[in-house]
């Protein structure tokens, strides 16, 4: 039988021609059989989204189809009249956008948006469509399927929205699904369930799918075949197995190398130093911080509660936790952007004023903050040399050639050619921006770098290269890091010590190899279990684990009584965990777990 989707010698150009050095898609051909899942993998800018969208006969504004054919069940989509295209879209081919939060219309009820297409294309009556939607909600494991539709997008969680979008796409029973990085924006723990849901639904609906992503380990779970896209061309094309285990093309190998091995007891941290016993570079003691006015205790929202952390000179403390656990707040408190309510921050044993206004310039210079989003952290109206030059003037009064030279050094440190000093941020790629962002912090030759999610916005390969860079910098400069991330494997591959943060509290803390080995705090275990592996069977395996099943997509809630993890904890002791604040077991020097369970119980490993 003929393939469901055939793309032949497709060429896509930018309308503004001259702006782009090359076509976005240059003569790509591929085929997709009914019911199979094809993963398009590649870094940002590789044209994978553009290629996927061609299956809907759609080119983003600024792009246009130049040559080639896209056939769905034999009929050429690109040649279609507008009306034909319209009846094709949403009906025979459905699209799942990268960010459901953005793709759902904030002004309309969810149900209306999910059923809209099928009703408009005259497939179903509104009533039927609603029933179909409810079924899909159920299939996707969404709570309260019968009333979910009446809610507005902002009223459900990110993970749920992502699945709701799947429902929206599937409602019309399309032959082909186009999924554009549907899990990238999610926390690891959430990602599993969403992946699972997609996988199951795609199977039972028997739809074919184009799955666009940059994350091989995700692909491994869901795809039948993989097309590796680079610079608008397909570099390699084959079954998951071939690609993962017998990669031919260099770029594919790069991708595979970039996938950080899952942390487990086998792999300790890379350079584990023993904590020297002199004064730590940074110490935070029983810190409590939050937003809202202090006096009005009612409105007061505590984001961090009674946090102790310690960063040795030249060491790296990894702070890990899901979004909303307060890790960014921690960085802001340390930097002084957000004055703490209680507790103190000590820099090399000298107490710092809570607010940066009262801190001395020297203290400010020794703690540097590297912000999560380089795009927002770099003023688009300043050239690189201005961005890097300012701290040099500001802290060291450098100017003229001395400054130029130092800037050149800094660029070299972050592996960028000196001519970049003349560029504006918008002329740089994401990775390059992040490097400039780092270089600016380094310009202050600080004692401590606060890195807040510095790689989470980047593609795997680029992320990996940044990590490599950080490691090198740590050796060269002996600077200490507070490395904040939601990506356990990233932390594991870089940190000497790890603090696991949940709902504003440190639940486990200690040297990386101890934290990443039993005994685990139940939450740490959940995190570890959730990190996808380059193995197609991983998803099923990990979902079999009790703790992951137990804690399916529960919203993180901040409680004052008992253990914050209680509602998600598979080993929670009713009557205790929900009432009393859990004790902190100090297992040995600098290694603590905060849990009601005894060390022995915890050590007994997987509770399954």
């Amino acid at each position, binding site marked *: 039988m003929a393939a469901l989707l055939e793309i032949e010698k497709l060429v896509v150009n930018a309308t503004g021609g001259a702006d782009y050095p*090359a076509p976005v898609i240059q003569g790509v051909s591929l085929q997709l059989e009914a019911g199979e899942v094809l993963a398009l993998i590649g870094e940002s*800018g590789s044209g994978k989204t553009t290629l996927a969208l061609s299956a809907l006969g759609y080119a983003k504004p600024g792009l246009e189809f130049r040559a080639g054919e896209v056939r769905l069940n034999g009929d050429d989509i690109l040649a279609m009249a507008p009306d034909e295209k319209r009846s094709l879209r949403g009906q025979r081919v459905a699209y799942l956008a990268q960010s459901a939060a953005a793709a759902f219309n904030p002004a309309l009820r969810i149900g209306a948006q999910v059923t809209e297409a099928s009703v408009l294309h005259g497939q179903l009556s509104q009533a039927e469509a609603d029933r179909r939607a409810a079924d899909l909600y159920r299939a996707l494991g969404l709570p309260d399927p019968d009333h979910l539709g009446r809610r507005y997008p902002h009223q459900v969680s990110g993970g749920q929205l992502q699945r709701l979008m799947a429902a929206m796409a599937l409602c019309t029973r399309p032959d082909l699904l186009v999924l554009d990085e549907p899990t990238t924006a999610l926390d690891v723990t959430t990602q599993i369930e969403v992946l699972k849901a997609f996988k199951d639904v795609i199977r039972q609906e028997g739809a074919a799918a184009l799955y666009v992503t940059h994350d091989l380990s995700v692909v491994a779970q869901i795809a039948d075949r993989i097309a590796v896209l680079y*610079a608008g061309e397909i570099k390699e094309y084959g079954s998951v197995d071939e690609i993962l285990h017998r990669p031919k093309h260099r770029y594919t190998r790069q991708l595979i190398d970039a996938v950080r091995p899952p942390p487990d007891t086998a792999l300790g941290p890379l350079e584990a130093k023993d904590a020297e016993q002199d004064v730590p570079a940074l110490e935070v003691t029983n810190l409590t911080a939050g937003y809202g006015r202090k006096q009005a205790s009612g409105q007061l929202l505590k984001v961090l509660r009674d946090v102790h952390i310690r960063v040795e000179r030249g060491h790296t403390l990894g702070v890990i936790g899901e979004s909303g656990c307060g890790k960014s707040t921690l960085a802001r408190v340390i930097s002084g952007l957000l004055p703490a309510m209680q507790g103190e921050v000590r820099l090399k044993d000298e107490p710092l004023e809570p607010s940066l206004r009262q801190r001395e310039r020297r203290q*400010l210079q020794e703690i540097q903050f590297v912000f999560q989003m380089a795009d927002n952290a770099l*003023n688009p109206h300043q050239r690189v040399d201005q961005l890097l030059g*300012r701290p040099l003037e*500001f802290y060291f009064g450098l100017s003229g050639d001395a400054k130029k030279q130092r800037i050149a050094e800094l660029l070299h440190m972050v592996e960028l050619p000196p001519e970049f000093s003349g560029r504006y941020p918008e002329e740089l*790629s994401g990775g390059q921006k992040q*490097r400039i962002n780092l270089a600016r912090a380094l310009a202050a030759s600080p004692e401590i770098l606060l890195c807040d999610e510095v790689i989470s916005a980047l593609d795997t390969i680029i992320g990996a290269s940044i990590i490599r860079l950080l490691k090198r910098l740590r050796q060269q400069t002996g600077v200490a890091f507070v490395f904040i991330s939601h990506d356990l494997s990233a932390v594991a591959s870089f940190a000497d010590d790890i603090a696991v943060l949940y709902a504003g509290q440190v639940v486990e803390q200690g040297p990386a190899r101890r934290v990443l080995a039993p005994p685990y705090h139940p939450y740490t275990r959940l995190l570890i279990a959730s990190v996808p592996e380059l193995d197609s069977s991983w998803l099923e395996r990990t979902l079999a684990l009790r703790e992951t099943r137990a804690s399916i997509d529960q919203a993180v809630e901040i409680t004052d009584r008992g253990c914050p993890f209680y509602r998600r904890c598979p080993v929670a002791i009713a009557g205790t965990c929900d009432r009393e604040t859990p004790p902190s077991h100090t297992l040995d020097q600098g290694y603590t777990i905060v849990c009601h369970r005894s060390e022995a119980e915890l050590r007994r490993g997987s509770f399954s």
Partner: protein
Amino acid sequence: MSPPVDSPSDISHSQDGSRERPIRRLRFSTAGKTGIAVILFWSAMVLVGPWIAPYHEAEFLDEALFIVPGLDDPYPATDFQPPGAVAWLGTDYLGRDTLSRLLYGARTTIGISLIATLLAYLIGITLGIAAAAGGRVLDSSLSRLNDAVLSMPTIMLGLVVISAYGSSLPVLIALTSVIYASSVFRIARAFGLDIMVSDFVDAARVRGEGLGWIIRHEVLPGMILPMASDFGLRFVYIILFLSGLSFLGLGVQPPQSDWGGMVRENLAGLPYGAIAPLVPALAIATLTVAINLVVDDISAHHGGKLAGEII
């Protein structure tokens, strides 16, 4: 972009920015280009108008000029004459040369509006940023005061002020700039608040920069361009506001000519099909449309946000 080859250097490079980012540079549509042409034309007139004008703006053309050889009328009418060899664009209600008044008027009209607009921006942006960066008390007090000014009908404000201080160029400029500063303020403040919470401002603050430096180097540069889209529209509103004042006899004072005033003073010619009132109206229209065509291009370049439309 060449497909990657096996060389470590290429690897490290290909990792970031493997594809050159297109540099977004401001492009003008044909409409935009026409707009620019027209604007340039009028700016030229502002500079040289009075020198190339055939007569002085205040000069009453001599009746002798209009004597028709055939008829023996020693004193022919000079007002509302149709275009001809003597006056290319005809004459106005007092028998003055419309073309000359148009050329002189370009200077007055565009001059006042430009200065007033610039002032409005100076005031509006300064206060707007002060409100955005200066803390809750300053912000709310400035905002309330601004709302109060905004809530007053502009023409009435003009009426009162001019009745009090008379109508002179300085008064007109001060008046208009204050009135329009209030709407600039709103937008400036909004932009300011936006930028003040951005990461790069935080970055500057953790570095220990003072508020002044932050405003000068981090906040201002980000506001100027998007607010430029606004500029054109305000400029036009000011021209129209001035013409409205002239209608009430409060605008630019004779014999100086401003386009709005010219339309007004020659309205009586409309029934006689005189073009005297239409020529300046046309001039205003061309300028307005031109400016807005350019503005549309600029704001399209800035994600199509026409902040300026919110008056």
